């Protein structure tokens, strides 16, 4: 198992290296650079200044040379400076990473807690009113535009009821845990509502499929009660495809959180990456996107490990 994990981690490193080159290339090929953007807002800036600034920021050098320079720095732990925030990329990312991890972790866990039992229940009571109700809820969650739902939540809970803060990570001057938790409620609730539907539908389908399997019929024929059949036999087997979807979903959450972070002015990674791409902040966009890649790779690796735990027939030992 250890050897398998080392092999997969090595593969991930190679993928990351390849991705870093690809992302750098794509960012570099995008039209305009930070200095062009600066010029569009400054009526006084002269052509001489633009040329000088491009040289100062190294933007006049070939793309490959710039990538080589960045890679050399990255391998020694220097990921460069963010142009948008005038801070080292790593210093900037650390708090945002924590914020997003909290947001994603909480909403993922909450969605899981809601979707798994609801999905199982919908499958067991297929075509009942409960099933229809849960499906309606699931489709509503899947179809709702994230920005609209977020706005609705702000209007309901912050503007109309005044129960919760409309946005931010914490109130200015109050960095307490309670205040942070309070600011997390609306973004987590929104992100949960957006993701729970998909999870619920996958769990329901996997369970329906499993409940039709021969071994389930055998278990029932042996006189096992419905609870024992569902929890003891069906659920574990149904979880294998669900885990795959959840692993992929985890990466999607990262991009999904961007809209939620923007609407709630929540300082997280999704919003940061978006701002970096729009603002031509090469270093920040690159490291942020690489992190998103790493997260997808790790969640898939995690899913593979969970497969082995769920199904003893799956083994990674040579």
């Amino acid at each position, binding site marked *: 198992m250890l050897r398998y994990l080392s092999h997969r981690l090595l593969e991930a490193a190679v993928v990351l290296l390849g991705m870093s080159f690809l992302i750098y290339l794509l960012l570099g090929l*995008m039209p*305009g650079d930070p200095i062009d953007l600066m010029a569009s807002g400054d009526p006084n800036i002269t052509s001489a200044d633009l040329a*000088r600034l491009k040289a100062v920021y190294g933007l006049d050098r070939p793309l490959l040379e710039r990538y080589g320079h960045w890679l050399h720095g990255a391998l020694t732990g220097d990921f460069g400076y963010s142009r948008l925030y005038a801070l*080292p990329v790593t210093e900037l990312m650390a708090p945002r990473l924590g914020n997003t991890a909290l947001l994603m972790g909480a909403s993922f866990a909450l969605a899981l807690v809601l979707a798994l039992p609801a999905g199982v229940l919908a499958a067991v009571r297929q075509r009942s009113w409960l099933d229809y109700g849960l499906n309606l809820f699931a489709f509503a969650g899947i179809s709702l535009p994230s920005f609209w739902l977020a706005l609705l939540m702000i209007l309901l809970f912050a503007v109309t009821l005044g*129960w919760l803060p409309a946005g931010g990570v914490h109130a200015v001057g109050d960095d307490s845990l309670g205040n942070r938790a309070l600011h997390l409620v609306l973004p987590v609730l929104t992100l949960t509502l957006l993701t729970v539907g998909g999870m619920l539908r996958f769990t329901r389908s996997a369970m329906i499929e499993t409940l039709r399997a021969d071994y389930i019929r055998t278990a029932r024929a042996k006189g096992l009660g419905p609870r024992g059949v569902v929890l003891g036999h069906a659920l574990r087997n149904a979880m294998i495809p669900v885990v795959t979807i959840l692993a992929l979903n985890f990466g999607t959450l990262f991009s999904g959180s961007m809209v939620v972070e923007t609407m*709630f002015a929540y300082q997280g990674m999704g919003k940061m990456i978006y701002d970096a791409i729009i603002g031509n902040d090469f270093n920040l966009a690159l490291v942020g996107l690489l992190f998103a890649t790493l997260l997808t790779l790790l969640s898939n690796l995690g899913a593979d490990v969970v497969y082995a735990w769920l199904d003893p027939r799956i083994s990674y030992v040579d």
Partner: protein
Amino acid sequence: MRRLLALTITLVAVLGMAVPGAGRAADAARDELVIGITQFPSTLHPNIDSMVAKSYVLGMTQRPFTADDHDWQLACFLCTGLPTFENGLAVREPLPEGVEGHGERDGVALTYTIQPGATWGDGTPVTTADVLFTYEVGKHSQSGISNAELYRRILGIDVIDAKTFVVHADRITFDYNGLGDFRVLPAHLERPIFEQDPATYRNRTLFDTDPTNPGLWFGPYRITEVASGSHIALEPNPTWWGSKPHFKRIVVKVIENTSALEANLLSGAIDMIAGELGLTLDQALAFEQRNGQQFRVHYQPGLLYEHVDVNLDNPILADLRVRKALMLGLDRQAMSEQLFQGHQPVADTKISELDWVYNPDVTRYSEDLEAAGALLDEAGWTDIRDGIRHDAAGEPLQLELMTTAGNRTRELVAQVLQSQWRRLGIDIRIRNEPARVFFGQTLDERRFTGLAMFAWSSMPEHVPRTIMHSEEIPTAANQWAGQNYGGYVNPEVDQLIDKIEIELDRDKRKAMWHRLQEIYAEELPALPLYFRADAHIWPKWLDGIRPTGHMQPSTLWVEQWGAGTG
């Protein structure tokens, strides 16, 4: 499951009761002001990068030597008096040997005195040592100063005493005594960092690594908290020499999405939305209709000139008759009334009527479809098939109109232009692009084939050298430098621009400005649309804010803001 549901409902209810009015209570003591804006400053260094968000914040923490005031007149802020030839503080002097222009023109010596009470927040006086250091940073090619033109024009600075210095400039322009872009830096804090390595100074400056250091600020407020991307908190600066500001704390909160910004205002999380970086005009108009009773909405016409650039390399548009027909085919007044309730005045040229050099007697284009049609006929576009004009060779009168994708107002205006020009038989194809592509490549490299709609920011009496002078046409040979995207060439305009810059006599200069506007309106190097207005949304109790309409933010007079009884 039933238990879980009951628990959730209970939890939400308890939370609701536990935190009544999680937003700011409306009747809280009014010694704190929370301002919502849509952009976070990329740096707080006064001389690196230029963006509105930074000007807005620094308006509260620093003072420029000179800036335009509310009456659009140059005034002293950090200095005690403007040097002029009349008061003897500005003196003509010959340029030294070796300096470009030696023997051909004069330079000028300008004497400035720093406000006697000006003191950095840590108690260190603002002195000529700071001025010399700022000059050194500005002159250094690696320091990353965004606008170095002013520093290039300064040949040297002589120190008279701790508060008085003389600037030797290499030319006498009409705005010779302005030092707007010369934002003084604290030498006692920044010099060691700069001297360590000027090339990496921009990454190590205390303005970004330690922005709450009181020694960096000398305005009415100093920065006490910076949460990158989220908010900046400011508190009164005890060393401020002017009148005492009212608010004990001002928080500038960044909420990029304007719908969320509006919701935050309604929830009480912010008190006001800054017009400099706030709602778009259409959003503000809708907001006023819904919530005008609770808030004051102030529309401030400004200098942002919304227009359509014309690519004069396109043979259709090179024909002046077609450009005039395009103007006559538009009902811009109705557009302004319908879309902006008349808050955005129609433009005749790039000069706003708020500017003292404005010429009211230029050719004005009101909607006249008959005259427009006649001009197009005259230009050879006579054959109308399927509602589209064609020339004798059968070529359709088809033009591409580009603007920034995602900008709702511009996209709407583009559709209105398309439908209005369609009435003349002109087939307009709209092709919008994201701002970074549009500004970063399409305009920069003159890749638009016909029409490009965008805005120019400006200042009072801003000479349009970069956008109208023939030397400023971007080409591959000059590495796409310059902003004369249309490719407009007129030797008389070139001469006027050169002369306006150095003419000190206001009457003579005004006459030249008038001529420049006449040519603009007659030759239409670009199609003027309207001047944008900023929408400021304030609580009724807030007093004293006076937006300027030009590039100086309203925060430059923050000490005059207060809480009234509204």
